[in-house]
């Protein structure tokens, strides 16, 4: 009991100092809602999300969850307050998640978010703001990744459109992703016999009103996808070669100083179009220029895949203690999250949070 009170006091003291730092960087403190409409979470992340959230039904049968994540809560705040310009938020609070055994885990966090900013230095401002309170910790390690790079890699591969979509959409689901690579290697996903039979039935379908609905989809939508699918390259798209490129790409691990050149030479070595990658790498270039000298930063292409709402730069700050890696902070860009939560369009957004539970133990 005494220890718990001491920890609470420590967290409060630390949070005051860190919040002051955030405020100096023009972040405005916000109180986040503790409860979230569960349907917003399931609509965005799918049914599996419910397993990790403490959810109950109110008297009207509506499902409500304890906030599992403070970034989602901040994004919801932005939407609820009907904002349409740049907002810089900071917060202090807890996130609540159930572990695999169903026990409730509480994560005390202090963080900041920049939503809807046109400033191309937003990443630097945000990452700097998170690193600043931690800079005195010895042997601090920063891992940087960019999940958007994978999308560019996939776009440059010679692959059917359906495979490109699958690879990108399932990038955050590691186990299934590995399974998909195996399928891609063997080109297994189409049944030639069934296609022959369905081509015969297509003629009947084409006689129907193209706008009529069958199971929530229009006839024209079904016909269009069927025709596209049978014309998509099937047997000659070098599955094995592409899988090797993907695996090699995901093994890239270099210092931030060498990240840009390593990625560019990877693209040219594999004869991939490097037009869009050159432009995209400017972001990494800026981070390297401003933050790369102050901290030890490693760049990994395979990093940041576990959170499905990240769309670009991702980072993790850690320290080694008794040969154990202690995660102190993490964050990333989430340019698509607000739209999936109900905002009218995609907006640039980046955020990060410091893990107070670990920080007080250092």
């Amino acid at each position: 009991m005494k220890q718990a009170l001491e920890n609470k006091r420590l967290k409060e003291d630390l949070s005051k100092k860190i919040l002051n730092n955030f405020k100096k960087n023009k972040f405005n403190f916000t109180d986040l809602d503790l409860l979230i409409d569960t349907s917003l979470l399931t609509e965005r992340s799918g049914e599996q999300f419910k397993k990790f959230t403490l959810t109950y039904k109110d008297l009207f049968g509506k499902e409500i969850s304890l906030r599992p994540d403070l970034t989602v809560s901040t994004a919801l705040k932005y939407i609820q307050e009907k904002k349409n310009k740049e907002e810089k938020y900071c917060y202090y609070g807890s996130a609540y998640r159930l572990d695999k055994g169903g026990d409730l885990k509480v994560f005390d966090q202090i963080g900041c978010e920049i939503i809807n900013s046109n400033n191309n230095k937003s990443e630097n401002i945000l990452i700097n703001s998170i690193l600043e309170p931690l800079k005195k910790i010895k042997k601090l390690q920063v891992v940087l990744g960019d999940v958007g790079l994978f999308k560019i890699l996939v776009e440059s591969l010679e692959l059917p459109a359906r495979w490109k979509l699958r690879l990108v959409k399932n990038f955050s689901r590691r186990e299934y992703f590995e399974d998909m690579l195996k399928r891609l290697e063997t080109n297994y996903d189409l049944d030639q016999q069934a296609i022959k039979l369905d081509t015969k039935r297509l003629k009947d379908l084409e006689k129907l009103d193209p706008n009529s609905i069958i199971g929530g989809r229009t006839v024209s939508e079904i016909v269009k996808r069927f025709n596209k699918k049978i014309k998509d390259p099937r047997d000659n798209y070098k599955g094995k070669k592409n899988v090797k490129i993907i695996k090699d790409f995901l093994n890239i691990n270099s210092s931030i100083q060498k990240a840009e050149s390593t990625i560019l030479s990877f693209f040219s070595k594999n004869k991939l179009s490097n037009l869009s990658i050159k432009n995209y790498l400017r972001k990494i270039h800026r981070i390297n220029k401003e933050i790369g000298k102050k901290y030890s930063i490693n760049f990994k292409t395979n990093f940041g895949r576990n959170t499905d709402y990240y769309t670009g730069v991702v980072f993790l700050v850690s320290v080694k203690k008794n040969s154990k890696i202690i995660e102190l902070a993490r964050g990333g860009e989430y340019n698509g999250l607000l739209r999936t939560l109900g905002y009218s369009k995609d907006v640039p957004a980046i955020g990060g949070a410091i893990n107070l539970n670990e920080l007080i133990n250092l």
Partner: protein
Amino acid sequence: MSKIKIGLPSKGRLKDESLAFLKSKNLEVVNFFGERNYFFNIKNNKEIDGIFLHAREIIERINDGTLDIGISGLDLLKELPEVYSENVKIFKKLNFGFADLVVAIPKDWLDVQNMADLEEVSFEFREKYGRRMRVATKYPNLTESFFLSKGVSQFRVVPSLGATESYPFTGSSELITDITSTGSTLQANNLRIINDGIILKSSACIFVSKKIKKNNFLNLIRR
């Protein structure tokens, strides 16, 4: 010694076939208190106290220790959280009550042959309509784990209590998962099973409580 408590399905083909199975083992079910009474006994056997229950209820009652033995469907056990399988053990799979839990789509979705297609269509659906595809089912847990194992993550489960086959045509869902033995009801409702869309092959089973001790009744039905 306390009596062994068994549960049998209270209606339908599963009830008839369970009674026939017991009879084939010389265990005849008798209702001393009349046809409408839920309690029964086994002729010339004083070890047993029986009750007719809904097939789902049988598993629940074995799980909470009210029943020692019961006949029910494998699908019903598998749908429940894993902790049930720790308390409710499969003693024997029976030769009746065969049915598959399957993924069924409107038959005119010609572009969808397999789960990989469904994965792609679900992404397109989300982009186009700004919401997830809905899957109507009486088996939300099995459906969810199967869809996720096949890479389909952009869906939402719509719980159904019956007539699930009608859902895609009333605007209540886009597709369904349901239990079927011949597929004829699905076909009659303009639905088609996806090629690799078999979630579970089910049959009737004898379930026992994990706390049950060896007894004569189990020896009789084992053979």
